[in-house]
């Protein structure tokens, strides 16, 4: 109830709306002077009105790739973070690998991905997973380590198993860090999915494919309509994470309102 009321209050949405209006004004001004660089806002809007289905179905493709990739990437990152945190040997072994995966440009390994995973959705999910992996890994490692010394001592005096320390102590302590990274990777997963659609053969649909096709035809209005979809999805994902975070971290200083 209070949550919903919060959203309805002008203080909540007015700044957002105002910023968007300012951006729109700036946009229109630039677009008027540079019709080849930015499409006009009405022409972008018309895209949605003319073919809502086109954007909905492609957005859905990209969103489902992004969400599956998120699931895989976040799960893998948390798992590896746990292993890194539990074993320095593992950390030294795996960190260089993680960096390699992180800096390898997708376009370079796109053929390998298609060979390994076929033309379907899998390579896109893999790319998205790789994109989300590193930020979550780094934050979760720090989070798992940021355990209050005294509480850890209490747990150690009762000979808490590593699993208990992990699940009941380290994991909750890591949540503020984990959520910070989730706020990063939820929107970022969309970028991962799009880049995968750009660069791996076999992309039949998705906003990335749409942007790629539209830009090869110089259909600026379509490109930017797709970007608008992405921005909307990204903002929504961020809102979801923030809302869950607010509930899950009500005990943490970072959620104090002043």
């Amino acid at each position, binding site marked *: 109830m209070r949550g919903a009321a919060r959203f309805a209050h002008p203080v909540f949405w007015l700044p957002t709306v105002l910023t968007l209006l300012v951006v729109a004004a700036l946009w229109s001004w630039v677009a008027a002077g540079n019709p080849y660089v930015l499409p006009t806002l009405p022409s972008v809007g018309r895209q949605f009105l003319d073919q809502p289905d086109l954007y909905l179905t492609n957005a859905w493709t990209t969103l489902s790739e992004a969400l599956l990739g998120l699931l895989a990437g976040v799960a893998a990152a948390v798992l590896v973070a746990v292993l890194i945190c539990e074993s320095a040997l593992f950390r030294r072994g795996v960190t260089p690998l993680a960096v390699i995966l992180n800096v390898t440009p997708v376009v370079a390994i796109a053929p390998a991905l298609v060979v390994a995973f076929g033309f379907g959705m899998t390579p896109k999910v893999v790319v998205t997973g790789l994109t989300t992996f590193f930020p979550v890994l780094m934050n979760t490692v720090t989070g798992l380590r940021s355990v*209050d010394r*005294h*509480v850890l*001592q*209490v*747990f*150690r*005096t*009762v*000979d*808490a*198993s590593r699993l*208990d320390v992990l699940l*009941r*102590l380290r994991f*909750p302590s890591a*949540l503020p860090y984990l959520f910070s990274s989730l706020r990063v990777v939820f929107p970022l997963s969309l970028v991962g999915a799009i880049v995968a659609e750009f660069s791996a053969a076999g992309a039949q649909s998705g906003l990335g494919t749409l942007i790629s096709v539209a830009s090869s035809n110089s259909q600026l209005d379509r490109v930017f309509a797709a970007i608008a979809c992405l921005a909307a999805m990204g903002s929504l994902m961020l809102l979801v994470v923030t809302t869950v975070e607010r509930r899950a971290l009500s*005990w*943490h200083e970072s959620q104090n309102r002043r």
Partner: protein
Amino acid sequence: MSTEPAPGAPFVAVDDACKTYGDGEKSVRALAHVDLQVPRGRFVSVIGPSGCGKSTLLRLVAGLEEPDAGTVRICGRTPEAARAAKLIGFVPQVPALLPWLDVLGNVRVLEKVNRPAGRRGSRRGLASDPVALLTRLGLGDVLHRRPGQLSGGMQQRAALARAFALEPQVLLMDEPFSALDEFTRESAQLQLLDVWQDLRTTVVFVTHSIAEAVLLSDTVVVMAAGPGRVAGVVDIDLDRPRHHGQLDTAAMHEHEHRVRQLLETAWNPLEPSGRDVA
């Protein structure tokens, strides 16, 4: 019960323990050649000037720090083995509650983590009913509040309840009543004595209150600082059960006086500039 040591051997034994924090120039000698023998079922208080190494000693016994030299044995085992046998209950100097759990959750989580101790089968009312335990400590109304919503004393009592609920064989307590008013403290003391007598728990109790140490203990160990060492031991040969009414008796005062004297000599050489300002 497998936790029985050889007859006559002390239950908690610290032998010639030394502990230095850090290394190089910045190192701090916290403990030097400390001996402590606590027979089974004894209530031993440790008292000493601030910074003399009481908490360090307690952490050494709990196996939370390794001594640089010397040994620590609990019931003939290493602290690690004692922890594995779920013998230890520890109340740190700060409440150290989990901020994301409410009071009851904080008591229960440690019980759950300590689960194998339940197998001892000797569980009495305490652990099986943390709510009653918390109620007796005056926290019955705040079972579902989180640590951030509690007063300092309430947090301290929650930490106390958490340790009591473990029904440990050795209870290591680091100034557990420092944030409590006189009456709440008295009530908590009584409950501590209950636990101690019912379970034949061995207690090592750090406090700054001489009266409290004398009232509760069989033995008071006075420590001195620079580096931390045992300055003297006072045996309190008063009858049990004791009660707060005894606080003003001559016997009690006599013991308090001895402890205070020891403490004063332990304290004085350390901070010569401390007292002459008036």
